[in-house]
Every structure is written in structure tokens, then in C-alpha cells.
């Protein structure tokens, strides 16, 4: 799929190109009006003409343009609600852009399988389900199964992998989720503040795993509120604020400006 032509030393091969991307969420009900049934009814009736009026729009990303190259690790920073995670989802092709386009090399993937797992199933079955949901084949999962379980350390305190996930402590569940998600190799990898799960020992292990994934992936995006982990991993930083790209440049420069702005 990925035609890695022209990968000479010094040549910069783009892997992700965002071209004036706008993303708009549409939220039902949140309309400023009354929440009563009659108000809802009149909204439905009025909907006939043009755009639905009971629906509020949230313009989460406003005209972001950038190009990411092979071998780069890019940090995304910005205050809560500035559109970082939304932008990642758009790059992954999970959230359609209102206007503008995102071009990618291969299929970028978000690190995370939380949504595919089911609390009522055993850890064992969740490993298989999560792997399949990420697009791994049954053979791949069988090969990596033991690795995933060992990495999560779930079985260190007894045979927990054969128990339903709802019986796990929140830390254990988070560890298993991370282990499943990190089991797959990615072309363009996006990590959304996944670093801070589990106990100290597991954090060290997972940071190490992320560094490995970084090596294997062509391009890495990292969303984090920890300036330290951005400094440790990224060589370029995008600063988003209110959905707009405020700054794009080398890590030190952008983080300095960001810290000045946020008063730290």
C-alpha cells in the first residue's frame, strides 16, 4: 500500500498533509431554548426549512494546515477543548471533515481499543476481540497473545485473565487495554495521552513500549498535557487554541511560548 518511493537521505517524504481542515460537531438538544417536549416538537416542525434549527454546531477545528514528514514525532499541545483530539480523529479518518482534506500515507491509527472491549467478557476474549477490532488476523493474535498478557502483568496476581473484565481494578483494566492497543504496529501512530495509566512500574514499561512503537512507525503524533513527555518524545510541536493552529515549530520554541502564555 505505502509506496515508500524517494526515501533518500535528506529527502523529506510527507506522510500526513492537512489542507485547511474544518471540523464541526453537531449536538442535538443542547439548543439554548427550553427543553420541554413542546419546544422539541416545534423544533422538529420547523426543521422543514433548510438546516435543522434544534441542532447546535460546535466548530472544533478551524482551518488547520500542516504537513508531517516521515520520521517526525509531533506533539500536539493546547488547553482543554482546543481541538487536539478532534484533529487526531480527523487525521485517522474517523471523523469526517466539514471542509478541507486530510491526505495520508497508508492508514493512520489511534492508539486505543477501549471502545471495542466489553466489561462482561473475560480478559482472554477481550484480547482477541480487541485485536480483531484493530484489524489483526487470528494468527497474529494467537502469536502475540502471550506477549500481550505478560506485558499487561494481569496474571502476576493470580489467574485474572480468565475472569470478566468488570472484576478488574481500574488500574488492571487500564493496563490490559494499553497492552492490547500497543500490540499492533502502525504506519502513522497517534497517541492520545495514553501514557499515564497503571502503577509506576507499568508506566515505565509502557513508555518504553511507546518508544519502540515510535521507531517502527513512520510518523508519530502525541497529544499530552505533560510538557515533559512532549519534550522527551517530540521534535516538532503544533499548538492548537480554539481550533486554530497558533504555532508550529521546533519543540523548545513552541513549548516556551506555550508556557509563557499559560503562565507557567
Amino acid at each position, binding site marked *: *500500500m*505505502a509506496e*515508500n*518511493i524517494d*526515501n533518500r*537521505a535528506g*529527502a*523529506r*517524504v*510527507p*506522510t*500526513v498533509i*492537512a*489542507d485547511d481542515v474544518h471540523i464541526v*460537531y*453537531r449536538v*442535538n438538544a443542547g439548543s439554548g431554548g427550553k427543553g420541554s417536549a413542546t419546544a422539541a416538537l416545534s423544533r422538529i416542525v420547523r426543521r422543514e426549512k433548510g438546516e435543522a434549527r434544534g441542532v447546535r454546531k460546535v466548530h472544533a477545528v478551524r482551518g488547520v*494546515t500542516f*504537513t508531517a*514528514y*516521515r*520520521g*517526525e514525532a509531533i506533539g500536539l499541545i493546547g488547553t482543554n477543548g482546543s481541538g487536539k483530539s478532534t484533529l487526531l480523529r*480527523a487525521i*485517522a*479518518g*474517523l*471523523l*469526517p471533515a466539514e471542509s478541507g*482534506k*486530510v*491526505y*495520508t*500515507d*497508508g*492508514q*493512520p*491509527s*489511534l492508539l486505543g*481499543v*477501549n*471502545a*471495542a472491549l*466489553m466489561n*462482561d*467478557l473475560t480478559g482472554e476474549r477481550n484480547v482477541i*476481540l480487541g485485536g*480483531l*477490532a484493530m*484489524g489483526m488476523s*487470528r494468527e497474529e493474535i494467537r502469536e502475540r497473545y502471550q506477549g500481550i498478557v505478560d506485558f499487561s502483568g494481569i496474571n502476576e496476581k493470580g489467574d485474572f485473565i480468565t475472569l*470478566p473484565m468488570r472484576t478488574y481494578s481500574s488500574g488492571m483494566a487500564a493496563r490490559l487495554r494499553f497492552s492490547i492497543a500497543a500490540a499492533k*504496529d*502502525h504506519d502513522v501512530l497517534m497517541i492520545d495521552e495514553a501514557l499515564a495509566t497503571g502503577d509506576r512500574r507499568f508506566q515505565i514499561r509502557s513508555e518504553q513500549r511507546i518508544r519502540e512503537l*515510535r*521507531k*517502527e*512507525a513512520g510518523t508519530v503524533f502525541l497529544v499530552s498535557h505533560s510538557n515533559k513527555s512532549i519534550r522527551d518524545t517530540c*521534535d*516538532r510541536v503544533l499548538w492548537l487554541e480554539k481550533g486554530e493552529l497558533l504555532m508550529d515549530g521546533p519543540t523548545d520554541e513552541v513549548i516556551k511560548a506555550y508556557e509563557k502564555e499559560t503562565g507557567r
Partner: protein
Amino acid sequence: MSDTTHDGAIATSPTPSPDDGLSPSQLAAKYGLTVSGARPGLVSYIRQLWGRRHFILAFSQAKLTAQYSQAKLGQLWQVATPLLNALVYFLIFGLILDADRGFSTEVYIPFLVTGVFVFTFTQSSVMAGVRAISGNLGLVRALHFPRASLPISFALQQLQQLLFSMIVLLAVVVGFGSYPSLSWLLVLPALVLQFVFNTGLALIMARLGSKTPDLAQLMPFVMRTWLYASGVMFSIPVMLADKPAWIADVLMYNPAAVYMDLIRFALIDGYGSENLPSHVWAAGLGWALLVGFAGFVYFWKAEERYGRG
């Protein structure tokens, strides 16, 4: 493709590159980048879907298992639930209401139970379809897979549920004096056709429901109307004998009635072809192909928009 292990050597160089003057779309074209999240063609969509068949199956089985995992009796409920359902209908319609006009009790009870189970198959596929996308937005927004996997998976879950009900159904049928015969094999093609029809319907409902989640509130009423109009508890020709013939014809050729009749005909000895409309297999096949294909195309047409809430 991770085979080219790029050892983190940063390729960023300040030297001006020949790419500088290019617009984003020209740059993308030069390096063969594709639009992220674009809708694939129909054929490659089907291929992607086939590639995800293990996920579709595993997801449906996981949903099925998760349903009763908190109950003490566990998976026994897969069979106990339809059994209790059948008992309730037997109590009300068989013992209290005596609604078996036109049939003997040996025919009426299996007739009723078949109708209920087969209709429930369609009904629950539709209801699961409505929530297939809108109820799984987290999944849709987190992972990449052909979105049709979800409604298909839910329809498959209902099929597995029906197979459990079939155990009860066969016991009821035998209990009322219809013994296994070759005609029982006709159940298989009938179920395949109904499954294709249900999947198409679930796909249609999934797209509608992703735009208008309110359908989840509305559909139970639509489905109940459909239930009463399809002759689940009574024989349409007998019940509508004094009405214009076209009404009975319309009701009898509606897909739910067609699939119910096909399975009743296959299983119940006393339910002969005189109770079925003519060309009923053709009708069943036609409905399956029409709704299955139309539903798939209709769902695929909005593939790139499902993440939007």
C-alpha cells in the same frame, strides 16, 4: 507496513526542497497520499468487509455472551428465554383466548410459536440496527473498520439467538405431533433468505438511526403494527375471509409473513401448501435480494459520514 524499520533518524533538513512551491493537493498527489477517511468503491468495500469477517463474527458472539453473563444461570437463558416466551403465548392464545380459528390445536400452537420466533428475529434485527451506529459512536470514532461490520454483526447476533430458539421450537413442534422429515431441511434456505433480508433492513435502519437516534423510540410501535399485520397469531386468509381479497394478498406477501409461512410449512405437518400464497419461495428470494442489496448500497453511500455525531 512496518517492514521498513526507519531508525528514527530525523529526515528534517533545512535545505530548500523542490516541493516548496507545491500546493497541499499537488504534494499529496506527488507522493501518492490518499484522502483519509474517503469512501472506498463498492467492490473494495466488500473486500474490506470480507477481511473483517473474523471481527464481525467475534463481535456478534461477544455481544451474545455478554447479554447473560451477569445472570446466575448464565448461558442457559439463551434457551430459557424463548421457552418462557412460548409458554406465555401458549397460555394466552392456546388456553385462555382459544384463538385457533381454522386450525386444530396440534397445528395452532406450533404455528403460533414459529410465528413469534421468526418475527422476533426480524424485529430484534431492526431494533439492533437502529442503534448499531448511534449506540456505538465510541467504537466508530476510535477504530478503523468498514462501518457495515456493525449492523451485519448485530444481525448475525440475532441469527445465533434464533438458533437457540430453534431448539425450543423443534421441541414444541415434535411435542405437538409433527415429526422430523425431509421437509425440515427447507428451514435452512428459508433462514438464509430471512437473514439476508434482516441484514439489509438493519443496514438501512443503521444509516437512518445514525442521523436520527429518535427512531429507537419510534420503531417499537412500527414493529408492533407490523407484527399484528403479518399474521403471527392468526391465519391471514381465515381472518380476512370477508374482506376484499387484495388486503389479504398484500399482508401475505409482506416479507415477515412470507418467511414465517416458509418455516411453518417446512416444520408443521398439518400446515400444507394450501395456506401459502403462490410463488412464495420466489417472493422470499425477491425480498431478500432486493432489501439485502438496496440496504447494503444505501449504507455504503454514507460510509465516510458515520463518525459525525
